């Protein structure tokens, strides 16, 4: 469990980082190191053997959380623990605030970054699911400049994203939740801190007693986070009760075809996806009511 040899570079600007990513000179894969919570174990097991590691921890201005014109921008290097404690995140992205305590353990969140988790795109992880649920915009910079990628287009498959090899994720932009909005993140993991067998991110905006907008995404049931559009549609304009929740959950679960592994069978994952949709939506709606 010792990494293979790699070249280590530590740029101090995004431009330098992009240069390090794009001038590879037959060096092989280049990997970005942010919090390292996924990359370092992969290196140790030699499942990843990049020729170069671009350590972005020395880049300034990637660790800020700002809110402007109803949009929250989280720099790619913001540590998960910092985001979880941020007043801006708690107020304007309550879903992310609810999800962060479920990521691993304290030590992992102290080091792991918001951007790193999203760029790593583990389909069982919380932050990609949050990004998918909230239609986050992922800001990428490459040799040709900056571009913004919608979450729906960003997660392209199992641990794969729309980022090209010479691009770096610099920020995550999420629209601030308005009044009447509540959020919940519910998941089932084997142990406290494990990757979930399935998880559900839900954000509900209420207009009086009826659902003005519901956003739901599911982790752990496909190659990438799954947006539960049928459930969202089933909830829109309705008053939440058990029957409506059943309808929403059943509509979504019927479309899921998760795979089985040692920790949970496909049938299990499908089942708990339904359980968690009901639970997350109910909790999100209750929290929404509290804000009214």
């Amino acid at each position, binding site marked *: *469990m010792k990494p293979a040899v790699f070249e280590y570079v530590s740029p101090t600007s995004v431009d330098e980082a992009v240069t390090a990513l794009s001038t590879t000179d037959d060096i092989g894969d280049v990997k970005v190191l942010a919090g390292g919570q996924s990359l370092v174990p992969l290196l140790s097991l030699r499942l990843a053997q990049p020729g170069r590691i671009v350590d972005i921890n020395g880049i300034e201005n990637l660790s800020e959380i700002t809110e402007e014109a109803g949009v929250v921008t989280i720099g790619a290097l913001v540590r998960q623990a910092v985001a979880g404690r941020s007043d801006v995140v708690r107020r304007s992205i309550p879903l992310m605030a609810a999800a962060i305590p479920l990521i691993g353990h304290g030590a992992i969140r102290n080091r792991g970054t918001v951007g790193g988790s999203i760029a790593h795109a583990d389909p069982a992880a919380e932050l990609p699911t949050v990004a998918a649920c909230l239609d986050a915009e992922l800001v990428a910079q490459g040799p040709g400049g900056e571009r913004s990628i919608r979450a729906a287009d960003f997660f392209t498959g199992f641990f794969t994203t729309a980022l090209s090899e010479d691009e770096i994720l610099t920020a995550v932009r999420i629209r601030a939740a308005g009044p009447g909005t509540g959020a919940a993140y519910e998941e089932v993991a084997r*142990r406290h801190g494990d990757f979930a067998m399935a998880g559900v991110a839900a954000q509900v905006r209420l207009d009086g007693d009826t659902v003005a907008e519901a956003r739901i995404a599911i982790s752990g049931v496909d190659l990438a986070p799954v947006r539960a559009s049928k459930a969202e549609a089933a909830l829109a304009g309705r008053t939440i009760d058990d029957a409506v929740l059943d309808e929403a959950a059943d509509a979504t679960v019927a479309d899921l075809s998760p795979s089985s592994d*040692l920790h949970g069978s496909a049938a*299990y994952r*499908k089942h*708990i996806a339904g359980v968690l949709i009901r639970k997350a939506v109910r909790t999100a709606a209750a929290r929404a009511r509290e804000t009214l």
Partner: protein
Amino acid sequence: MAGGSAISGLVGARVHRKEDRTILTGTGRYVDDVQARGMLHAHFLRSTVAHGRITSIDVDEARKVEGVVRVFTGADMSAITEDLSFAQPIPGLHSPSYPAIAHDVVRFVGEPVALIIAESRYIAEDAAGLIEIDYDILDPIMSTTAGLADGATELFGDVPGNVVHTDEQLFGDIEAAFSQADHVVEQSLDQHRWACNPMETRGGVATYETGSGQLVYEASTQTTHTLRFLLAGWIRQPIHQFRVTANNIGGGFGLKFSAYREDVAVCAAAKAVGGAVKWVEDRNEHLVAAGAAREEQLTLQAAVKADGTLLGLRVTMKLDAGAYPINPPATVYAGLVRTTLPGPYKLPAYHFQHHIVATNKASYISLRGPWAVETLVRERLMDKIAETCGISPVEVRTRNLITLDDQPTKMITNVTLENVTAAETFQKLVEMVDLDEVRRQQEAARAEGRLLGFGVGTFIEPAPGTQEFWAAVGFPFGSEPCRIRIEIDGKVTAFTPQTPHGQSHETTLSQLIADELGVGFDDIRIVYGDTDATPFSMLGTGGSRAATMASGAAVYGARELRKRVLEIASHMLEASVEDLQIADGVVSVKGAPGASVPMGQIAMGCWLAPDQMPPGTNTEMEFVADYDGEGGGFSQASHACWVEVDQQTGKIEVQRFLVVEDCGKMINPAVVEGQVIGGIAMGVGGMLLEHSAYAEDGQYLTATFMDYLMPSAPELPEIEIEHMEFETDKVVGSRGVGEGGTVLAPAALLNAIDDALAQVGRPRITETPITPTRMLELLGVIEKE
């Protein structure tokens, strides 16, 4: 002095552990802390196939890597070592010998196929990536059923039908028992593989001194003397030129009782390169290759009377031994299960049959109470008998348990039970739990849609066991030595063959010696883990023997030296021995504190000028005691477990866990509690989380801690412990307590889950681990795949 003197009163007190200062300040010396000048690093390349014939191996590119010192193929290694053989003269045992590094056939994913010695572990792993091996793939045997099937591929030429050993033994009139039965109660359990996973993995540093020809192996082991004895022959090292040492050891749980092929290869490599070679197994290697335990399938049939009285028991066990035998032979596990299974219950007739089967997996190893499945299946059977007979789990046990009044008596397996208080611990447990209230709470919970379960169990633990017990098992019950020396200044050094790796022997043996000799706790040092220094024993630390055996050796050794000191002091102080006392290292006349002589003065005289000491006295200030265990005995405990089952997610929460244990006289209650709590955590983790899993093609599925799930604090409740200290008339009334938590907790836990399932009309558990998926399948919420 029966029952032990207590001048300083340390025995029985919660004395702070001597070990903690070193361990908690990070100043211990584990294998990976060893740094020697010019030390080289070993890395094993391991098989990626479960069963295959090596058709070619090319190490040329690996040898060219800068910093690589030597690459050993299997053939290279076999040229300088003997095959490992754990064969013993046991009738019917097929124990194939095997090379340190495979050169012909590989039989599990993770089997060593090459060894790289390099200037760093990084370089060694780089080189490993350049080795090319071709295999002809053979059919993998991945279960006992597959191994026993007609025409199954045989793993070894000398293990016909993959049957390592099979035997059946009959005790009493089993036919009569079943013909008299009102009910025949059947039960089966298919237990999964789970593993030891000590915090410190396997490993060692072998240092060969080319001038003297001496080899020193500093290893993470539970048995320095056995390791030396076994390795010497295999690595062709004269045993007098071979020293095995162990310093701090980060846990063993039974795994480190055996010698392994990696030990052979590392020691042989050090000899071949003429220097120091370090190997520390990384966690990935450990999970894949170190071996795992507990994979057994049992079926039981009990003949019972209408009132729940046990008449007879038929048991069949299949044990998945993995590919390669280790120490002890698998027959010992079968013997332990067979001998212990009747437990503290009256059982008039018993038939036990076992099949030990070779499969394409890492070795079946010892794990904290290697016989534990006997308690698991018996205690679950008792609950099923209760259900069948319409009585409570408490009643069925009370009706069948052997009480103190019944003893001495013989188990049906020919083991005499004496001073066994399992029934008394169970009675105490029942007194501490309001069973009616438990049922009321369950009803109230069900009304709210919640599901609570409650389970109990009881057992005996052969810690240390008796001569009869170990004879029935087929394993030696050796006596235990301890060498104690009063140093020239009156301080004390004691040498034990125990190799403590979490059991606190430095503390407990110091407590005992301090009380016996009247010297300060801090004026005693316990020396362990050095074959040059400690007395010989084949057993080291294991089987929870030390509480009785090592304690006894220390007490008897200290008493002999105390006698010598007092006789000398008696002359010097002109007082009779009976009138003398020793406190804080000073011998004085009782009631006349002025008349005293420091033990250091006596010791100095004995060491420097024995001729001038009082005539007729024994001036040897060093003594080797050998303790026979005074017949040995058993520990016992009863557990109660409360669970809540989430019917939506299948998650099981252990809400409360109560232990009533009796290990006799506690030397240090804090140490006892640490063992009990850790043992229960391991037992609960084993049932709910830990799984050493293989795919059908023999690939290993749980090669990191992301997939092999160890229990952590949030998964466990506070463990409540009630101690009973049944005292016998033996000098050493302390019994082992290291394994009991792990042995009994699974039974109480599964009984609690079964109780929950029964409340909603669902069937019992027949397979482990109890994952959330399995739980929802049992609850009928989802279909089984």
